[in-house]
């Protein structure tokens, strides 16, 4: 039954969005982290989403390749350079008195968080509605 595929698809969407929310949480938590070199400074992380066309969820349905679940292909680190600030009192400061902060843009992260949360809500909504439809179908002819 095609409706049961939705549980896989929406579930994969919710799982991917929760990975995204996790990276946002990690980025925001480390937005004020400093380090003693530009290389070791915290870099913002982003998940890479990919549609899964040939998975369990996709191959079995009558719509074939259409029922694409989503998966997190990997986590990439932002390559934007972070800022260096002069803070000789900081124990992490390098020989010249500089500390290197993360390249996390808090505003961007907040927008990302809202987007992930909305997408998660959409998936949860789809899941709930499909569950209701399946229950109604099960009750067919019983009233």
């Amino acid at each position: 039954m095609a409706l049961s595929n939705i549980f896989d698809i929406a579930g994969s969407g919710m799982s991917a969005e929760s990975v995204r929310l996790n990276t946002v949480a990690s980025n925001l938590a480390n937005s004020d982290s400093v380090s003693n070199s530009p290389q070791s400074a915290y870099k913002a992380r982003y998940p890479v989403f990919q549609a899964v066309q040939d998975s369990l969820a996709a191959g079995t349905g009558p719509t074939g390749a259409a029922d694409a679940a989503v998966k997190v292909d990997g986590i990439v680190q932002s390559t934007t350079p972070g800022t260096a600030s002069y803070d000789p009192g900081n124990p992490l400061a390098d020989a010249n008195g500089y500390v290197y902060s993360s390249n996390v843009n808090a505003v961007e992260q907040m927008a990302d968080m809202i987007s992930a949360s909305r997408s998660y809500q959409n998936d949860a909504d789809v899941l709930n509605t499909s569950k209701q439809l399946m229950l109604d179908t099960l009750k067919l002819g019983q009233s």
Partner: protein
Amino acid sequence: MSFNLDSYLGVQPDALEVYSQRADVLAANLANADTPGYLAKDIDFRSALAAAGQSDGKGGGQGAPASAGGALQPETTSPDDLTAGSPQSGVSTQQYLKYRVPLAPSLDGNSVDSQMEESAFAENNVRYEAALTFIEGDFSNLNTVISD
């Protein structure tokens, strides 16, 4: 006189099957709302239902299992049957899948419009419920005939 439940219920079971597959496609669109390069799809409902009705009419005449019953194995009457669509259901909508025309282009090549998909999903659900109600009514009519 033989009574055929499939023809009694008419087009509604087929419609139910196509609606549930459309819900599948729309759910996939929503799940991939943030996937770069993903192209939103939708089922051309009219042609899919017309095809579903045809396959039903062909099989129903021989007393074959209902095409809308996903769990039933469809009867194979020609060598083409095995290759056509999925073996799990008589209604295959794969050839009626169309890419959605996006309202506005996006930078990452994703053509999913969450609002459009969400409203299409809601509409699809209402239609599914309507088809269920029609079948429900048919069954209750049948019940009246049997019990009175």
